[in-house]
């Protein structure tokens, strides 16, 4: 069974009397454990699509099933519960909590979202920090770390709850070439090890090159789908 099934998915925003279709009539399927990216110019609807898949926003019409859940039916509370159980997020600007150490940032979703026991939290957070190669930095605060280190912590935080899906919005946009490559390699390793599905939005050709499936968006419409090899 596919992890994400979108059928005629549309998201329309109203700006005064003007209706703008950020995503229009998008139909696609994303399989489990795949490494997928949405590409397209600014304003093409990539972030809106990721917000819809991440249950942060509601579709205006069409249907969107993520891990068997119809996103359109979720209220605010149910959407929060769904996200906490099913989805990990990685952001362009890392979005680590500045008052928490690297370890505490990774531990956060287990503690305040999933309310896991202390021993389990510790074991999983440390394992993930080691897995992304940043275990020795666990007591450092975000402002003491480089961009690449921060993003690897963000990857660990996204994966610590063992989500079925990780959504990454422009994950390499604020990284130099070496760190971008390292972060992408880390995510790919995680996918290979844990079987987690990764979905990105990006402009970055390095991310596109790593992707197994590339969806191209233009003006909110899904205009192309390419698989590994052809994608680059």
């Amino acid at each position: 069974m596919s992890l994400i099934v979108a059928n005629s998915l549309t998201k329309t925003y109203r700006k005064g009397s003007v209706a703008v279709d950020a995503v229009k009539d998008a139909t696609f399927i994303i399989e489990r454990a795949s490494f997928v990216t949405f590409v397209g110019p600014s304003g093409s609807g990539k972030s809106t699509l990721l917000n819809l898949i991440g249950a942060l926003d509601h579709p205006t019409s069409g249907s969107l099933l993520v891990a068997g859940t119809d996103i359109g039916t979720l209220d605010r509370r149910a959407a929060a519960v769904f996200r906490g159980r099913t989805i990990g997020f990685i952001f362009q600007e890392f979005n680590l909590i500045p008052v928490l150490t690297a370890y505490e940032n990774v531990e956060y979703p287990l503690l305040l979202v999933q309310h896991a026991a202390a021993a389990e939290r510790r074991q999983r957070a440390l394992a993930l920090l080691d897995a992304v190669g940043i275990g020795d930095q666990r007591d450092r605060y975000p402002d003491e770390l480089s961009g690449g280190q921060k993003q690897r912590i963000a990857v660990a935080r996204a994966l610590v709850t063992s989500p079925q899906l990780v959504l990454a919005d422009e994950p390499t946009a604020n990284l130099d070439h070496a760190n971008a490559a390292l972060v992408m390699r880390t995510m790919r390793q995680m996918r290979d090890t844990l079987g987690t599905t990764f979905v990105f939005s990006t402009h970055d050709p390095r991310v596109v090159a790593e992707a197994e499936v590339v969806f191209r968006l233009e003006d909110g419409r899904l205009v192309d789908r390419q698989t590994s090899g052809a994608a680059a």
Partner: protein
Amino acid sequence: MTKLIKIAVRNLARYRRRTLLTASLIAIGVIAVVVFGAAAGAFKGLMVGQITDSMLGHLQIHQRGYVASIDNLPLTRTLLPSEVAAIEQDLRGDPDVEAYSRRLKFGGMFSNYIETTAIRLNGVYPDEEFRTVPLLASRIGAGGGSLERGQIVVPDLLANGMKVTVGDTVVVIATNRDGSVNAAQLVVSGIVEGVTGPGGRDGYVHIEDALSLLRMDTVEISEIAIRLRSVDRLHTATNRIRTGLEEAQAAGNIASFEVHTWEGLSPFYNVVVLMDVLVISATAGLVAIVLISVMNVMLMSVYERVKEIGTIAAMGTMPRTILSMFVIEGAALGALGILIGNLVAIGAILVIDAIGPTFSFGRQTGLVLSPDIDAGRMLVVSAIVAVVAILGTVQPAFKASRMDPVEALRHA
């Protein structure tokens, strides 16, 4: 919860200067209320003590209508011996009553054989009087305070004016109830210092002399002054005594009576009320300071952390957890202000006690103000600040918890 507190404390530390400024503002409010409340309480206690222990007693019993005409010291509104006996029986059985003093108050003329002037006198049983108003003995500066039959304690202003000293023989002339005049020769046994308030400038004679002077065959009493074991029990004890006397009246043992607390007898009570109002006003000011400062800081905190809120909301943090985060942060800010405020307030009270500032009250000088560290007051003030700090946080915290994650994540 521990983690939420930890996050709250770290966020407060993150904006250290702002946190310290706000906590200082709260602390200043706490200090003002605690220190002013303690000083006002000490002043009030001292004044109330001076008034009740020097002359008035904590409460008084009279025949109905006596207090309304007290300026005339009427001899027609006395309690008869049988009524006094009924009242005494009631007072002796009351656990709150420490002592009582029967007084026969009257006006007369005072002569040193050269000059004559008006005088107000209390005929008292000395033992009862000294036990009921224990500061009376200390007011009698010259003469040591003995009051045997044939003696008189003269108010100091009158003694100075008439150039009378201890050991002098004087004459007191009084008109009795029937209008006939009588005189008695008495020896001055003491000079009593005047105090502010009703009866504060009266002289004293033994009650047997007063009865003789007024040609009364039986012991009639103008007022019974009562001292309680604790002034805190004033209203409870007064109500119980009043109820007991009503029952005695219903049984026909007392014709009429009235019971007044010192609050109803002394104009200083208005000052006490004013001081209480000032303390309440200071507390209201504190509430406003805390509410505005905490709400302001927390609103700023929410606006500065919109993206952070969006991030944790996106991760699946429930709105109530986000709400708790900010409420705990506001409460922690209030707690910091409370801690600093109470510590400084304790220090300030100790300093005031060490300095021992003195002041005058009426003709009394050298009264030392020594405020107490009142744990109860500090707890109440702390509780008010804590509650108001949390209230001040609710609106910003609610705003944070209801934030749309998409909008919040888009925030620059």
